[in-house]
């Protein structure tokens, strides 16, 4: 299915167009699931994604498409974030568990990073604070822009950029520490 412009899909989705909703779902599903699986187990993550879409369908009337406000993806991941937090609260725990082993999708053929480098990055990433990890996950796992991440977190885009810069500096430092230890 060729992706349509998100704004067109959203307009159709407001009119309860099933195809538009399915297209939005299929497009956001991998990122939503990857984001949820960072904090929940596989079943919980799938449930969280389904609940996210259910809330989106129920509340699409509240969504306002304002330029620079993060768009539909930012709104959708904001919902998913709350759903995940609710699920964590219901499970009696909060924050990150150990990084899942199944999220390493490094293709050695790409040559960008080696398996060892990817493992070092994940270990360094685990040393970041919850807020930093969440921000970077939204940026790199969910693939959101700074504006969309800001919308999901309920913050300003400038603040998100600054926080992202600080988080990457920490990650870089932790990565050097991890590589120094491993070396």
């Amino acid at each position: 299915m060729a992706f349509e412009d998100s704004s067109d899909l959203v307009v159709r989705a407001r009119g309860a167009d099933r195809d538009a909703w399915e297209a939005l779902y299929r497009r956001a599903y991998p990122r939503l699931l990857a984001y949820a699986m960072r904090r929940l187990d596989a079943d919980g993550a799938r449930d969280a994604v389904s609940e996210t879409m259910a809330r989106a369908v129920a509340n699409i009337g509240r969504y306002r498409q304002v330029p620079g406000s993060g768009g539909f993806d930012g709104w959708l991941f904001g919902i998913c974030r709350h759903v995940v937090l609710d699920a964590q609260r219901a499970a009696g725990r909060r924050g990150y568990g150990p990084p899942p082993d199944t999220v390493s999708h490094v293709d050695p053929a790409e040559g960008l990073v080696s398996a060892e480098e990817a493992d070092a990055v994940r270990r360094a990433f685990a040393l970041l604070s919850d807020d930093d990890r969440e921000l970077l996950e939204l940026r790199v796992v969910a693939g959101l822009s700074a504006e969309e991440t800001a919308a999901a977190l309920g913050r300003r885009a400038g603040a998100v950029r600054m926080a992202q810069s600080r988080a990457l500096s920490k990650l870089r430092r932790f990565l050097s520490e991890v590589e120094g230890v491993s070396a």
Partner: protein
Amino acid sequence: MTTRDDELLDVLATSLGPAPDAEPTWAEVSQLHRLVDTAAGRGPRARTPLWRIRRPLTAALAGVLVFGTASAAAALSGAVMPQPVRVAARAVGLPVDSPDLAGARAALARLRDALDHRPLELGAIRALAQDARDRVGRLSADDRADVEAEATFLLAQADNALAPPPGPLGAPPPETRPASPSGAAPAPASPSAEPADDGGRDQPTANPNQSGPGSDDHPSGDDQSGSSAGPSQSSGPGSSGSSGDNQTATTQHVDNSGHGGSDGGGSSHDGGGSSHNGGGSAGGSSGSGDGHSGPG
């Protein structure tokens, strides 16, 4: 190791990136479709939960229960029921008297009490009788049939009570006599008020009297009593009508001046009363006797 933020983000994305083949299952997509249909109102609407209507339903049932019980109790016991409740009760088909009929019954009851009271308070009786006539006159045919007998009886009793006391035989008729047949009971009352009384009596009582035995005798008698004076008065008591009767009536008119006058004035009721008692040429005298005996 990269140093620029964008490169580091790419490395991080590669290390933490999502599985490329992750897709929603068929069941998840179907569930989404159902959600969309439900939100759009196309799907089977969720039925209104019972708890949402339980409270107003309970209130409505309680109201109906209280209303029905109160109305039924009032209908059975004959207790006084507020008019709005009575109207509503009739509207829902409960066996309750109409407000007009209830008012007429109440007026007759008050009149009965006043007639039973000793000593008689003529002013109160006059007012209550007039009120009862008005109310009975406003009733529908069905409702009137329910109270007609009682109204006839009580109004005749009231007319007799209001009639001037009988004088001695052969005594000249009182000055108010011309008006008394028309004015019926309130003979001593002011002449100006009597035509009004007559009219008031004639109107509501005309119909019942017409149905009564004496009615066909005196439409004219009633009218005369209401409009004219003097000689024609004798025709009031002499409901059967001959001149001889009139004379006879006149002789007895002294006796009947009050009662016979009441017969004429309250033609409808009195006529009914006299007819019960036999009427005829002796109607004048018997009319007076009837007037007394009726209540008795």
